[in-house]
């Protein structure tokens, strides 16, 4: 196992508020790690820092993809994505007026480049490249159980469908590290159980490392191998699900007493 992500002393403040404060976080290749914590703890902000939506106030983010180790701090979001970090959004952000297939194709084509002249003049390589993009995208839809709605507009999907599509679109960028922000939000327990299975499966099939934010403890405790707990921007605990579950600070700040029954 090798380290894929190494975050040291990551800090970000907004005005007077320090949303993320000296966070250290390490991900090993192939791990499935949870990031939990109370609302407003700074979890989404960590994702936003990792993906370049906000530049960090201080701290470093070192990301290793096969053959390359680079610092992500201060890089533009598209560059970070191309380096191999994919993500989904807490508040779903699909291309609503495009079809499901198009949503995925756009992500897929970022690795399937052909020159501008080819586009304008429909030069010979065009059709082949387009077909590859389309097929690649369709394949991902099959994996995410979305192939039957490929031609629907994204906005017309059910909430659960949209969450799946977000994941499919992130996968299409061919990430090595996938960041999922509350993938089960708004799903009922039955749907959540299905999603849990799906996350396990894609991690395996695509050889991914996954970092996952979630408030649904049934999901987190089932799939995560390790968990970081954030509160007020600070990592207050980390460890295996059992360790975290038993940690009094975590119980006090986040889980509450009754979690065992949920």
């Amino acid at each position, binding site marked *: 196992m090798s380290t894929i992500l190494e975050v040291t002393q990551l800090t970000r403040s907004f005005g007077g508020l320090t949303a993320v404060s000296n966070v250290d976080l390490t991900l090993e290749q192939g791990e499935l790690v949870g990031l939990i914590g109370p609302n407003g703890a700074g979890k*989404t902000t960590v994702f*936003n820092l990792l993906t370049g*939506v*906000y530049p960090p106030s201080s701290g470093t983010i070192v990301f290793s993809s096969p053959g390359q180790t680079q610092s992500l701090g201060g890089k533009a979001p598209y560059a970070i994505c191309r380096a191999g970090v994919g993500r989904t*959004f*807490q*508040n779903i*952000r699909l291309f609503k007026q495009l079809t499901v297939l198009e949503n995925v194709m756009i992500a897929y084509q970022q690795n399937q480049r052909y020159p501008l002249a080819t586009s304008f003049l429909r030069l010979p390589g065009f059709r082949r490249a387009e077909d590859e993009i389309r097929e690649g995208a369709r394949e991902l839809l099959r994996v995410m159980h979305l192939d039957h709605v490929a031609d629907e507009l994204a906005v017309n999907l059910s909430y659960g469908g949209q969450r799946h599509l977000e994941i499919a679109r992130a996968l299409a960028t061919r990430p090595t590290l996938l960041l999922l922000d509350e993938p089960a939000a708004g799903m009922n327990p039955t749907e959540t159980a299905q999603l849990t299975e799906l996350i396990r499966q894609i991690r395996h099939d695509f050889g991914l490392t996954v970092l996952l934010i979630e408030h649904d403890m049934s999901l987190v405790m089932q799939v995560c191998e390790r968990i970081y707990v954030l509160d007020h921007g600070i990592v207050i605990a980390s460890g295996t699900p059992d360790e975290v579950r038993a940690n009094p600070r975590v119980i006090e700040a986040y889980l509450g007493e009754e979690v065992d029954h949920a």
Partner: protein
Amino acid sequence: MEQLAQQLVNGLALGSIYALIALGYTMVYGIIQLINFAHGDVYMVGAYVGYFCMVHLKLGFVESLVIAMAVCTVLGVVIERVAYKPLRKSTRIAVLITAIGVSLLLEYTMMFFVGADTRTYGVLPPFMEQSFQFGGVLVSMKQIIIVGISVLLMVVLQYIVRRTKIGKAMRAVSQDADAARLMGISVDNTISFTFAIGSALAGAAGVLVGVYYNAINPLMGLLPGLKAFVAAVFGGIGLIPGALLGGYFIGASETLVAGYWSSLYTDAVVFAILILVLVFKPTGLLGKNVREKV
């Protein structure tokens, strides 16, 4: 030095007018994100109402001003109800095109009735033709009136928006109309109210311009409308102090460019400054750059 002072006085009067028009732009924009192209034409109608009152009905300046503001208020509300309200759920650009339609409609309806030629306000009461000398700087009564009335109206406006419930309702509607409804706010009335105030200010500006330049025509709203829009953006569109700042800034830079370089380039310089400001401060001078939280 004297000349500079004189130019600044000129710029202040001009800027007041831009600011008055820009306020209407900004308020309407602030609440429904519409660049209300017809706003400049409401100002034109205000100028004609003032003309009619003063020249044909022989009313005094203050009465004419009030009547023009009242007529424009009604006009603004009618425009909003008839032309914009049906488009509440449409894209903003569709409403923009409608606004362009309304603008043309006002211009050419007016032209149909009064012709394209310039009209003049005629002889003003003597007190308005006075001017004062302050050590080489000439300040006319009309300039004082313009600046005075503008400032007064803006203060009143700022009070309404900041301190009253309706002001808060306006801001709520602008951010989330449905949520505002759930607070018990009547969205339609609030929007109408915004148009009413904005249009009243435009009407006032129309009469002031009629008095100041003594010449009005059906297409007079086009250019000041555009510049007021620029002023609003310059200061940060949607912000009332921004519109003021923008109005005065454009007034001042126009007079200074004309005074020290060439009138040829006033507009070009104003636009160039605007673009520069936007490049370095993408939300206008006073606009806050809030990056969307994701």
